[in-house]
């Protein structure tokens, strides 16, 4: 049997299609940022922020298969930490946010440790507990966080120039999202991404190929926490006022809903899910219960009928390479 000829690979087809998608997204984003009114820009900012959350959650749940029902906790940590660093110690927002991210990363890594021993449902409950505990801590620690009354976020400024305006903030968010998306694509097509995907398939098989399961779970949690917390920090600077009530279990569940509806396990899905998450309540303003119903039904429909999420509608049919 002579199979020494190697055919040229279909030029990394998957990633070039992704690059087109990302490019399109960026162009659309820029157009809206430049040419629309304040309210659309605000929505756009929210999409950008939640897209970062979605990517973070995708790394943990989509790639590595670790279900988290507590990601609102990391989002809250990012928001509050940025606000506190800025307000208490006058740290400029562009430093406060990454610092908050780093802080959340450490917490994420710590959370991973008990998570190593827990599987599936138990892990889900433990992450649920994390989210609840975080919300409660923020609520109780009045001296630092302002408790139930919430906290004002100082005006963000970049080298003396105020960035509080939505359209200025849009550039910051767009840049962060672009960097985050780039990094996530890189991750997916390299060693860590493959290891995480293998982890999701079978931890045992992954270990037998030489993957240190524990290490990668910690990496997944840490990265996920970082993305989500940075998003939280941006969120704080956009809404300029945070209070613990918004970072509840429902938010965590909505985060999961985002990536499921968008298409779990892909960065494209994360972006689509975030857009869906922001667009639906907007489309149904005035109908209090309608968004919940739509999200709920969408989730069920996606899981039963369209497991690949919205992104699978856009994906060209897979062809076998020849």
């Amino acid at each position, binding site marked *: 049997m002579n199979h020494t000829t190697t055919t040229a690979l279909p030029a990394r087809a998957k990633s070039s299609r992704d690059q087109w998608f990302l490019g399109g997204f960026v162009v659309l984003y820029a157009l809206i940022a430049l040419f629309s009114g304040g309210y659309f820009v605000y929505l756009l900012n929210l999409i950008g922020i939640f897209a970062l959350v979605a990517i973070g959650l995708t790394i943990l749940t989509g790639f590595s*298969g670790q*279900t988290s029902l507590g990601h609102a906790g990391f989002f809250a940590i990012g928001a509050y930490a940025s606000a506190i660093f800025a307000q208490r110690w006058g740290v400029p927002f562009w430093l406060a946010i990454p610092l908050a991210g780093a802080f959340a990363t450490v917490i994420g890594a710590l959370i991973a440790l*008990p998570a190593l*021993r*827990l*599987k*599936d*449902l*138990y892990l*889900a*409950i*433990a992450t*649920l*507990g*994390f989210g*609840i*505990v975080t919300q*409660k*801590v923020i*609520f*109780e620690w009045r001296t630092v966080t302002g408790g139930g009354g919430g906290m004002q976020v100082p005006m963000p400024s970049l080298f003396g120039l105020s960035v509080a305006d939505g359209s200025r903030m849009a550039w910051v968010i767009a840049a962060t999202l672009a960097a985050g998306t780039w990094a996530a694509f890189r991750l997916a097509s390299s060693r860590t991404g493959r290891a995480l995907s293998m982890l999701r398939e079978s931890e*045992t098989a992954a270990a037998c190929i030489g993957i240190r399961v524990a290490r990668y779970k910690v990496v997944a949690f840490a990265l996920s926490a970082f993305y989500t917390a940075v998003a939280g920090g941006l969120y704080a600077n956009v809404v300029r006022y945070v209070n613990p009530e918004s970072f509840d*279990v429902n938010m965590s*569940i909505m985060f*999961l*809903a985002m990536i*499921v509806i968008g298409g779990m396990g892909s960065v494209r899905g994360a972006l689509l899910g975030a857009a869906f998450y922001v667009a639906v309540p907007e489309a149904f303003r005035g109908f*209090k*219960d*309608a*968004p*919940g*119903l739509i*999200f*709920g*039904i*969408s*989730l*069920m429909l996606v*899981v*039963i009928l369209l*497991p690949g999420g919205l992104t699978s509608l856009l994906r060209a049919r897979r062809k076998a390479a020849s």
Partner: protein
Amino acid sequence: MTAELIIGGLASGSLYALIGIAVVLVLQATDVPNFAQGEMAMFSTFVAYTMLNTYSLSWWIALPAAIAFAALQGIVVQQLIIRPLLGSPTINAVIATLGLNMALHSVAGMIWGNLTNVFTSPVADLPVFRLFGVNVSPDSALTILVSVAMIIVFTLILRHTRAGIALRAASQDQAVAKLMGISVSRSFALAWAMGSVAGLVAGILVAPILFLDVNLMAPLLIKGFAGAVLGGLSSLPGVFVGGLLLGVVENLLGAYVSGTFNEALSFILIIVVLIVAPAGIFGRVKSTKV
């Protein structure tokens, strides 16, 4: 003082236990953690309330009707949503139930609005009685008694009726059960019906205490799950003990450590227990063949 805390804890704990029972029943039988359990219970409870108040039916009619509704609800959910997902990873069913949770909450809001309603307990007119020198409200006593009764009833059904035994066979090994002529789909529908009824009972017991509105069950569901996890998701008595334990610990922590932080502390406690015993206090981890 401590005795009062403990009795109070047992009362709230038995509520957690009831939800936990509903969840574990379905989990053990069909391998799906039902995150919509709370909203399903809330919905059925609202149906009961509507029959009692809007249509002024008596308890003797409303209760069986509500139970029938709950059972039907369980069957419909299982057949329409869960059954198509048989065979795919459990996370899909989890997500589906989370979606159902949201949808039911919204629909309930649409039908019954967001008012808070007073739900009169069937034992509202009974006096408070004393036990071990502590005042026990009839509601608390009813809750504890009903939880125990439900466990007994469900255990009897599972052990001594044909349908129950068929269900246990189906949950152990679907392929073999089918070969033996057991309808797996029907058995699973039965499990979900039972779970939904258990939820309804929990709702009816809780509503008089916490007042009936669409947000009634959400916090309870989480505690129910937590208590069940603590007791080790494998047996109904284990879940019962776990729920009670959670209720008592919460009360004691609330009084002796911190009034507002006790819920969070309870969760931390559960996470610690899980680290030490990943399958809960009484749990047994299902081993899987590689």
